[in-house]
């Protein structure tokens, strides 16, 4: 259940991003904005269970900057392709290009990325 440690890193990343924005805007009088939504992309081969991640977020967000935030998870499909001719290589088959005999390269599907945050600013 490393989904809890990923949520911990996610909340830290959100806090850092919001802090950086605050420093740039330089309006210390205004209270820290509420985080309304957090968008992440999780690759199919990233080793993260999205349902567990959502549950972990529900539990862990209390008392953090993400307390009132919704989590939106964008699941990215695995994409294997030939590094030479860029042909897509069918999942479930051998991970090697049938034309070039090159080992497949994972072009997408292993990402664990904080894409964007939506802040409530009154």
């Amino acid at each position, binding site marked *: 259940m490393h989904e809890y440690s*990923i949520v911990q890193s996610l909340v830290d990343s959100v806090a850092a991003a919001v802090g950086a924005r605050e420093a740039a805007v330089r309006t210390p009088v205004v209270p820290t904005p509420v985080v309304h939504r957090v968008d992440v992309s999780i690759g199919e*081969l990233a*080793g993260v269970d999205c349902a567990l991640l959502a549950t972990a977020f529900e539990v862990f967000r209390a008392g953090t900057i993400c307390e009132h935030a919704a989590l939106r998870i964008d699941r990215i499909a695995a994409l294997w392709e030939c590094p030479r001719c860029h042909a897509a290589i069918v999942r479930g088959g051998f*991970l090697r290009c049938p034309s070039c005999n090159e080992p497949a390269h994972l072009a997408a599907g292993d990402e*664990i990325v904080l894409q964007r945050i939506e802040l409530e600013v009154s």
Partner: protein
Amino acid sequence: MCQDCGCGDVNLVPLDVQQRILARNEDTAAHNRKHFLERGIFAINLMGSPGSGKTAVLEATAAAFEGGRKLAALAGDLATENDANRLTRAGIRSRAITTGEACHLDAELVHHELHHLDLAGVEYLFIENVGNLVCPAVYDLGQAKNVVALSVTEGEDKPLKYPTMFAKADLVLLTKVDLMPYLGISLDAILDSLARAMPVPNVIVLSTRGGLGVDDWLGWLERNRAMAFEEVMA
């Protein structure tokens, strides 16, 4: 106005971040990697299911090198120091990393223990991860190579069920092959599913009972260490 929940009159301001969530772990892993490169240490992240034979492989490695190579190990375990004790008895300078709740090692845990381990002259550092086919693959530790111990008793389709682990493996040690005759499992079926999960399906068929494949494994280690440090010198 909020479109998502209709909560009233707040302005929603988007903030583009596009940052890897485990960036901190990756920075620490890069720091570990620097330690290893500077000291000529070839570090292996040894992963696999509980009981797949990780510690047994390391015991056999120490015996086969006959003290001719300086080996060190960090042994990750949820609760005990058993593996570190076994490795120390086998002649490997070892420390335990007890993770408690955590199902995997991370770069910070490894970094902390590194500075408690006498690394003078060490050529190979084996980081035995917590027995688990999912979580350890997610966290870079700063290793040069990922090695997965897969025992023949686990069935032929594990690589297809745990694709993340095998997609990241540089080498699979197919362990306990002395048990094959009792299992009615086919080697070809295991190799077939590995080739559907690993772009470069490097496999060494191995048994610590009788020592089949141990020489191939030592050869792989020496070749890959030499290549790793040639690249640095170039």
